[in-house]
């Protein structure tokens, strides 16, 4: 399988041979930043288009069709339109916090985005505490949303932000516990380590019932953390207009929208990484010929394919279920998902210590 690590190593050696070390590092950081920016905007645009098309398909419509072939240029038109809008700040807003909020939201999503394993050797931030780092930085986003609602000086945004905050912190626990379950099985927090451990079978298949349960809990919790689908009560249109970003206009609003779609990709990517083997191809033990064919498909295609598939499930859930009430939402987390998740973790720990999982 193609290894991007060889390419980056070659580039690093080449640069190091002609210039001093600090310059090499600077050039490499600039390369990383450009790559991140391009990938970030492309994924965001693709996701907006993807959601509109899938939503149209589910509702027996065509979705955007006018701008460009099959509406492919619609998103670009939207970006240009949103850039031309005036940036309004209201009276009596806390101007500093109001302007700080989009930065926090975008920084949180950019940091988690940089941690995703895109392919063999193609991962920007690869810490030995990778998953823990993801859990830690993704919670900066909540802060941004709370600030946005608080600083806007409007009743809708305040209530929207409070709901959003309560929902996101509650479901973060379930997310964390299902990630813990997988860390327990993998025995490492490093993202590369988790992916490598799934070479002979994805954790969803390897880890018996606890892994499947953890996957289901993760999917529900991730959906709620993104304020999407049946859990979109922070932005319930008929109650709160648009929730925490009601008073943001133009590109200021665009940042929240961008981060929302990117977060969708990030949770899909993390689900892929933890349960579906990251960029690892599908291998079935004993089927040598089949495994060899699967190895020919590039790792990037595997990762993106799995992530887009999981996103499709999120879209499907969103357009199929009615919105829940806030008491139902909190009861689901604290009375069902949390206790089930904790028991699940203990069961997984027993399985791991007794060596009852596949490929032990």
């Amino acid at each position, binding site marked *: 399988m193609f290894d991007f690590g060889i390419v980056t190593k070659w580039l690093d050696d080449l640069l190091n041979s002609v210039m001093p070390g600090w310059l090499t590092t600077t050039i490499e*950081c600039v390369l*990383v930043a450009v790559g991140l920016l391009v990938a970030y905007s492309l994924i965001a645009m693709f996701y907006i288009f993807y959601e509109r098309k899938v939503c149209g398909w589910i509702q027996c419509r065509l979705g955007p069709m006018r701008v460009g072939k099959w509406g492919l240029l619609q998103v670009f038109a939207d970006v240009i339109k949103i850039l*031309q809008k*005036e940036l309004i700040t209201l009276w009596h807003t806390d101007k500093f916090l109001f302007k700080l909020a989009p930065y926090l939201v975008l920084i949180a999503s950019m*940091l988690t985005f940089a941690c995703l394993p895109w392919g063999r050797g193609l991962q920007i931030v690869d810490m030995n505490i990778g998953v823990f780092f993801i859990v830690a930085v993704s919670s900066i986003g909540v802060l941004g949303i709370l600030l946005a609602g608080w600083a806007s000086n409007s009743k809708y945004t*305040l209530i929207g932000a409070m709901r959003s905050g309560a929902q996101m912190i509650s479901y973060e626990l379930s997310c964390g516990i299902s990630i813990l379950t997988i860390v327990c099985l993998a025995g490492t927090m490093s993202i590369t380590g988790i992916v490598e451990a799934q070479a002979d079978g994805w954790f969803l298949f390897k880890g018996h019932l606890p892994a499947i349960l953890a996957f289901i809990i993760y999917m529900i919790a991730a959906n709620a953390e993104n304020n999407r689908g049946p859990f979109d009560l922070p932005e319930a249109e008929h109650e709160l207009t648009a929730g925490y970003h*009601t008073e943001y206009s133009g590109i200021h609003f665009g940042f929240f929208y961008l981060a929302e779609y990117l977060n969708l990709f990030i949770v899909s990517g993390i689900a892929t990484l933890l349960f579906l083997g990251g960029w690892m191809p599908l291998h079935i033990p004993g089927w040598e010929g089949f495994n060899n064919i699967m190895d020919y498909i590039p790792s990037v295609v595997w990762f993106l394919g799995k992530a887009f598939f999981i996103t499709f499930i999120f879209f499907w859930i969103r357009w199929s279920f009615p919105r829940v009430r806030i008491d139902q939402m909190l009861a689901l987390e604290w009375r069902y998902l949390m206790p089930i998740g904790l028991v699940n973790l203990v069961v997984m*720990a027993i399985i*791991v210590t007794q060596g009852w999982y596949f490929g032990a």
Partner: protein
Amino acid sequence: MDFSIFGVQSTTLAITAALTGVLLVVGALVIAWLIGPRSYTEKKGEPFECGIPTRGDSMAQYHVGYYLFAILFLMFDVETVFLFPWATICKNIGSQALLAVGTFLVILVLGLAYAWKKGALRWK
């Protein structure tokens, strides 16, 4: 030390990623400021309230329940942080790890059960 892509330190790359986020926001804001219109009318600065004039202070009262859930969250979030190192080495330690963390979890779940019994998990 912890190295990632290009053999650069992970911390440096994480800072680069954060700065890229800042750059994205600043860049887009500058473009919007350059090509966007600017106008001033007095009514524009009013908070949105379905078209009618704003009434009262915008810092309205909200449900105290949010605070309660935030406190509960704090308890379990710290627990998750403690459990991460345990989960990493759980495979090597064996049944002793189970015993140790079992005690820890039982005490925490007792806390949750108490909150549940007191009705803290019910939205009133």
